[in-house]
């Protein structure tokens, strides 16, 4: 009875998290990493090799922590600074601070603030879908072969439902805590999938 009530509580918590996640995604969507969000950037030709750490510290000071600094071209003598929003005042401050450390000709007036378009989530991840689906089908087929004596329905229930719930939990958690969706997201999804399949196989064996 105790175990049953524990299971009910667990299912209720999982259900709540998933519903909350779906609600957050419907209203606000996912929080995308800066490089995939609509943002603004400025490009500065510094005329000498740039110390990225120094430029990053200037960017952090002027724009806040949520910014991206990248060097451009083979000699790294140009730098691009990207943030959700860059005002003209912020641009001018960045240029002036850089000029305290480097000598270059480009002025604030010559530096355009360019809009960088958003990358859609489907464009970010559509390449992952087919390999994921193929591997999921093969894994289900494999577990059916290994555990058919335990009952086909039981095997299917565990090896399909548990990974789905695990992934939904992960995505809901990411949406609720506003974890930036970006380059590292597929890693978490793959790791959670592997762990959930392992857990499902242990459950089937018990």
């Amino acid at each position, binding site marked *: 009875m105790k175990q049953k009530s524990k299971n009910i509580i667990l299912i209720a918590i999982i259900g709540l998290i998933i519903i909350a996640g779906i609600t957050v995604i419907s209203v606000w969507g996912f929080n995308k990493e800066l490089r995939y969000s609509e943002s603004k950037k400025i490009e500065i030709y510094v005329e000498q090799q740039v110390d990225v750490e120094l430029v990053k510290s200037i960017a952090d000071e002027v724009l806040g922590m949520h910014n991206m600094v990248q060097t451009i071209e083979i000699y790294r003598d140009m730098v691009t600074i990207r943030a959700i929003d860059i005002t003209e005042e912020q641009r001018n401050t960045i240029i002036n601070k850089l000029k305290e450390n480097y000598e270059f000709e480009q002025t604030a007036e010559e530096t355009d603030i360019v*809009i960088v378009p958003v990358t859609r989530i489907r464009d970010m991840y559509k390449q992952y879908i087919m390999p994921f689906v*193929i591997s999921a089908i093969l*894994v289900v087929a494999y577990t059916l072969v290994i555990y058919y004596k335990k009952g086909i329905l039981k095997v299917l229930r565990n090896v399909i439902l548990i990974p789905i719930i695990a992934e939904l939990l992960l995505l809901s958690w990411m949406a609720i805590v506003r974890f930036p969706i970006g380059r590292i997201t597929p890693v978490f999804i793959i790791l959670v999938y592997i762990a959930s399949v392992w857990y499902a196989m242990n459950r089937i064996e018990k």
Partner: protein
Amino acid sequence: MKTIKIITIILAIILITMIAFGGVYIRTQNRMENKVKSYDFGREIKGGRIVELKVNDENNEEIRTQENYEIVKKTIEQRLKNLGAQDYTISLNTTDGTIVVELEENSNTDTYVYFLTADGKVQIKEEDSENELLSDEMVKKTTYTYTANAEGEYQVYMELYLTEEGQAKIEEIKNNYAIFEDEVEEIEASREDEEETENEETENVETTEQTEENNEETRKIAKLTIAGSEYSIDKIEKDVIRVKIGDETSNTTYVNNYINIAIELALLTNSGKYPIEYEMENNRLVYSDITNKQLLYFAISVAAVIFIIFIALIIQYKMKGLLVSLSYIGFISILLLVLRYANVSISIEGIGAIVVTLIINFIVNKALLEGATHTEYKNVLLKLMPVIIISLVFSFAKWSNLSSFGMIMFWGLLIIVIYNLAVTKTLLKLKESK
């Protein structure tokens, strides 16, 4: 004797670790050069080419629609897929149509960049006129082929397959225009003759009248252009226009060049049409925002966790724990060396695969420490099969981030099996039988 064997194995592990983390330095041309191959990182860690495409100002307002921007974006994707590009991201500003393409920087990048804005239009136009006789939409697909004659000379062709509308149109063009290579040559030759006749000083009215008659009879010429260049039509059969690419030749360099041109044109024409013109605004190599320092901090964090695990193992299993910890270091060193030489590109997913491999190796080592039976081993291997399946499927994925994960997992699992059988198990056996 057994102690000596254990010491020998440990010394070998130390040597491999020094090579993996330090390198092998040999004097080359008065400087010390590390002969151990360096890592190959993916686009997200190394950086890549960023190409910005803007809508050409000469386009009419009517065609500057979101729908057309999306068509161009899809066409770009299709071209990159057809070219075999394995790592790219495309973003579209739906307001002004700006498209930003991020590509991996390698020997093919310049080719990909060229294809982003290359015009793949196929059309037949009346000579010296804007009158379009056959448009792009009437061409279904293009292929290429080549033939060889008895003298070993090759001729490369492109074959344009027409739609039903195109087939009807080409019949009309054949009847009213000179379109084949020999017809066009004949007309151009007779024009040259006429010019020579007109230049003669003696006035000959009959000749002049004859010239006027000839002018009336000469058909107009229709020219085929593909991607802005003119090509000669060799044959038209039912729904196929066969176009000559280059001259007939036995020179293999020329033949290969013509084949490459044909491949390029086929790719351009088959991947879709741009309904709106774009121009390249920027084409830059941009380094990643992930710095070497950040990678180092991550590696140090992982190393710190591994170190804590080692301490726990030594406390729990004493000497056996120490031997397994040393063996684990050897495993990491061999894995890192194999990744350098197996031509594996390390992406962020690849780093995730390294972490998963380390976790799996730890599970296997724990099983070895606890003296797992054959059945327990089999159980662990059975549970690892899904991971093996995932790594094999991902290895064959065209997307380089996924194939990086798959390849690293594959090598990791292979090394886990071989290394633990050869080294870890041997060390534990030697310790037990001392």
